[in-house]
């Protein structure tokens, strides 16, 4: 299995551990990721609010490079995925748009190279069956709420999962030996850049999600988006302080949880880079496993 890989800007900065864990996990699972050379920013989440054509053209360049190579593109970041998918679909739907975009990016893109969410690739191309056979440190008794965020499964006609009650990440957690916890905020929006630009709007949105996860009885949150991650993880203490709450909810990229279950070193997966301590819970998991082994 081989895919073009589009990490996106966040994965080389705030979401560096998403990049690290993705690459490690893909390697362990035998998926070859060919990082698009000299990839550019997809424009999320500013370009589409400024100019529609620019919003389509920026992702199109990356897709065009993948198309030349004959590969579909695996995209970890939900926002990048959404922008790339939108481009792919508009190009496929309209020959005229295809022509315009190819002229703007000065490359050919016909919509043949598809934008694929990394989660989709793992769950639907590789398959849960194959993943679960490779699990050697199951996430036993770890209660995880899956937070898909707003962009991963929308709009419904393009999605690889149900837009209202998606299941793929939950099923993945289950395949990793963890306990998926159902909750109602799987696709509620975390406010994206609002936490940075307008915290009085962004913080209440984050608060709602963290509270819901806590109330659902989760030990931690799994996510597929670097912006969601920074809102839920980096901002967690800040938001907690504002609302007088202590959530202590570690947030993981789903790839990190996969890495842990596949027996990779948590440090090497980048888990120490989180703001809310996540290593502790991993340690507990390993200790419990150790006790089970000796017992």
């Amino acid at each position: 299995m081989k895919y073009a890989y589009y990490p996106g800007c966040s994965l080389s900065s705030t979401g560096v551990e998403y990049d690290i864990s993705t690459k490690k996990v893909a390697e362990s699972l035998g998926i070859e990721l060919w990082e698009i050379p000299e990839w550019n920013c997809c424009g999320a989440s500013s370009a589409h609010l400024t100019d529609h054509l620019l919003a389509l053209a920026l992702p199109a360049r990356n897709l065009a490079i993948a198309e030349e190579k004959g590969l579909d593109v695996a995209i970890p970041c939900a926002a990048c995925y959404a922008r790339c998918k939108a481009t792919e679909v508009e190009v496929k739907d309209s020959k005229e748009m295809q022509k315009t975009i190819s002229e703007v990016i000065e490359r050919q893109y016909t919509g043949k190279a598809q934008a694929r969410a990394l989660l989709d690739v793992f769950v639907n191309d590789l398959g849960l069956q194959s993943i679960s056979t490779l699990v050697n440190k199951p996430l036993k008794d770890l209660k995880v709420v899956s937070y898909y965020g707003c962009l991963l499964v929308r709009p419904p006609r393009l999605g690889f999962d149900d837009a209202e009650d998606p299941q793929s990440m939950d099923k993945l957690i289950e395949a990793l030996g963890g306990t998926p916890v159902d909750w109602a905020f799987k696709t509620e929006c975390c406010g994206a850049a609002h936490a940075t630009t307008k915290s009085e709007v962004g913080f209440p949105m984050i608060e709602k999600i963290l509270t819901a996860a806590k109330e659902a009885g989760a030990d931690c949150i799994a996510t597929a988006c670097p912006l969601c991650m920074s809102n839920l993880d980096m901002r967690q203490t800040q938001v907690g302080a504002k609302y007088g709450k202590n959530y202590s909810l570690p947030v993981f990229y789903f790839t990190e949880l996969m890495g842990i279950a596949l027996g990779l070193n948590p440090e090497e997966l980048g888990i120490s880079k989180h703001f809310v301590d996540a290593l502790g819970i991993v340690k507990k998991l390993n200790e419990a496993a150790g006790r089970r082994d000796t017992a």
Partner: protein
Amino acid sequence: MKRVGVFVCHCGTNISAAVDCEKVAENAKSFPGVAYSTDYKYMCAEPGQELIKKAIKEQKLDRIVVASCSPRMHEPTFRRCIESGGLNAYLLEMANIREHCSWVHPDDKERATIKATDLVKMAVAKVMQNEALVRSTIPITKRALVIGGGIAGIQAALDIANAGHIVDVVEKEPSIGGRMAQVDKTFPTLDCSACILTPKMVDVANHPNVNLITYSEIEKVEGYVGNFDVTIRKKARSVDLKACTGCGTCIQKCPTKVPSEFEMEMMDRKAIFTPFPQAIPNKPVIDRESCRYFKSGKCGVCQKVCPTNAVDFTQEDELVTERYGAIVAATGFDLFDDSVYGEYGYGKYKDVITGLHFERLLNASGPTMGKIKRPSDGKIPQNVVFIKCVGSRDEAKGKAYCSKTCCMYTAKHATLVREKIKDSNAYVFYMDVRTPGKGYDEFYTRTTDQYGAKYIRGRVSKIYEKGDKLIVWGEDTLLGRPVEIEADMVVLATAMVAKADAAKLAQMVGFSYDQNNFYTEAHPKLAPVETHTAGVFLAGACQGPKDIPESVAQASAAAVKVCGLLSKEEMPTEPIISAVNEAICSGCGMCVPVCPYTAIDLKVIQERVHGKTVSRKIANVNSGLCQGCGACTVACRSAALNLKHFTNEQILAEVDALCL
């Protein structure tokens, strides 16, 4: 030698003001076949008609052209006229020189006259090829079939039976009663549904002219108006209806419990069961899917305890064929599947239910003995939220149409919540409140005013569980503010949709259905209970969402149509139908799928070829079904099919005449 008479009408000055009628009549004399031509002030008036009749006799005319108004106006008049003059009615053609000529070309008499002459020329050319056609008759079988034993079917059957005709009612379920039996109270009077339905069920069951055929389905329909041959599959009941007394011992003793469909799976029934206590016939059936005996061969308790030995495990489905003169489709509706609304969590959250579930919760013989209780924990809900238009008026996930009944039954539900639960709140999320019906708006007004239900204009976007509450997010669009309600129970006013197998039945009988699989009436205004297939009528929600009074009214209307048909011994058929030239037809069957009335099938004929008898297939037009559209004639490459009165020869002659 054919002798055509041409009669040009002035229509007072309606025609003659713009067309030189005398000249047209004069011109006509030179057309091939014309033996006589004249003009007159009013052809349709008595003296005009006499003029025609007289000319037929005196001039020995054998076919007539009347150049006057539109045939849509006076063709019947002139057909009668020449008939009484001794000619076959179909030896008439009309040239429309009024609507299509004088009235639209008032200022150019010369060219209007040329045009009128052309139109007459075409009519003459056509009439030269006309043939005498005879209206035939088909016998009518005096027996009606009603498909579906809900309130619409029951009403139709009763009305037909009371008029003295025999009716068979075929019902798929073990009992008649349909959806209305599941309903607790009816709007706008709040009288109990069972109290008004069950007497009708008894009436229909006891009526000497009615045969109830329950637990049965239509297997095949052949034939046409007056003569439908219908095969009915009587599903194996596993209980001998004659021997069973309906004592119910078997039901009591049956060890297998399964969720009751009638109770919306909120309560159990046995594997041998009647759907509800007032079922008719009140004799059980065995649900073989869940019965222990049928699954494992062990058990047989019901058979052992039956005092009359009525339980018969060896029963098999039985096919019976009967001939009917008319059919009423009254197959009812299904509920939309609300689980497509992931955002509402129907199917995931136990206390998010449909209106029909709620009916059963209200019902004294339902799962909660008439107390409104939550399915999840049996608690009495304080805050009940109703959401309207779930599946209706929703192009994205549901149906584009309005389900018509939900506004009223939701008002009823909200009223009953407020009436039955002390200190309760009933919130209704709506987009519009549609109450056109006698006493309906008054009922709705009482719901808000007297009963204090709170109506919030807006569609709900999300429901989720928080503890034992259901959080409902909506917008109060009148305030322009997002709102949230902590509810104990949410009731979805679910769309009415066509039965899952609606299309199958329509295809079997041969009538049409719309994009939502509701049956299509012949005309939305003027033929609302007829279908395009003669002898097949519609009643109730199978034609579109309807409430009880409307279903009953439509059922009675359908019954009148049936009675009208059955009151005759035979009915005349229009002779303008397609005919097959058997010598030419190669039996390719291209005509079969283009016929909208399934009037064409292929039949096998025998013929002698080189001293051998061979058989071959040819098209066969059913004169009872053919309506004379001519679609088949164009599908037939070799022109083996031809439409009488509009034959290929006639149309070609008209085309040629136009250019002579």
